[in-house]
């Protein structure tokens, strides 16, 4: 991954903008950009963890049982 940052213009809720500015003022973030960058990095990490958890659970599923349940749903949809 490149260390070079991309420039983008975003629109955010006023309270979040105020909070980011407060983080900078109190020394908890280097800049407003850094604060939003960190928040997005955290979301990316969380989403990856959630996808990983779903994959792990899906790998534990019994494919035969899942197929039977789906077929049973299809039968009910078809009104059988």
């Amino acid at each position, binding site marked *: 991954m490149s260390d070079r940052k991309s420039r983008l213009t975003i629109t955010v809720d006023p309270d979040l903008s105020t909070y980011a500015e407060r983080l900078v003022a109190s020394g908890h973030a280097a800049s407003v950009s850094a604060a939003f960058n960190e928040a997005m990095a955290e979301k990316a990490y969380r989403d990856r963890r*959630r996808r990983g958890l779903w994959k792990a659970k*899906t790998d534990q*599923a019994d494919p035969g*049982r*899942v197929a*039977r349940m*789906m077929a*049973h749903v299809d039968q009910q949809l078809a009104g059988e």
Partner: protein
Amino acid sequence: MSEVTAPPFVLDTSVVTAVARGDPDIIGLLQGYDARGQLLVIPALAIAGASLDARSEEADDLLGGLELLDNVTIAPLRGTEQAARLAEIIARTGLDPWDAHVAAIADVAIYPILTLDAAKWRQPSAELDEPLHIIEISDPDEREPEE
């Protein structure tokens, strides 16, 4: 990927709770539907009910994983009209708020409800102007023989 012609499914609280509890077969089934392009609608209050049932970080991650699926829409409760309709359904059917939100969405959109327990929907469905279309998720091989 096969073409899907089925209407969107609304997941009831029992299905969402199974996700929160980490049921691999239900999670595998929903993942399978998502992969084949089947639209799934999940009422926000059904998620609240499921989260209330399974209080853990893993449960919250599993519930959060639902909205990462490509074909899932989380249906919010928005505005006074929807809130009043929810209250009306609770009053008429005796459903808890979680499943009343499921009924409200399925009733308006005429979408089938996916549930693990069709029996619990029988009476509430009869109390509405139009019966709900209930589809039970079950494994026919595990069904107990009728006496």
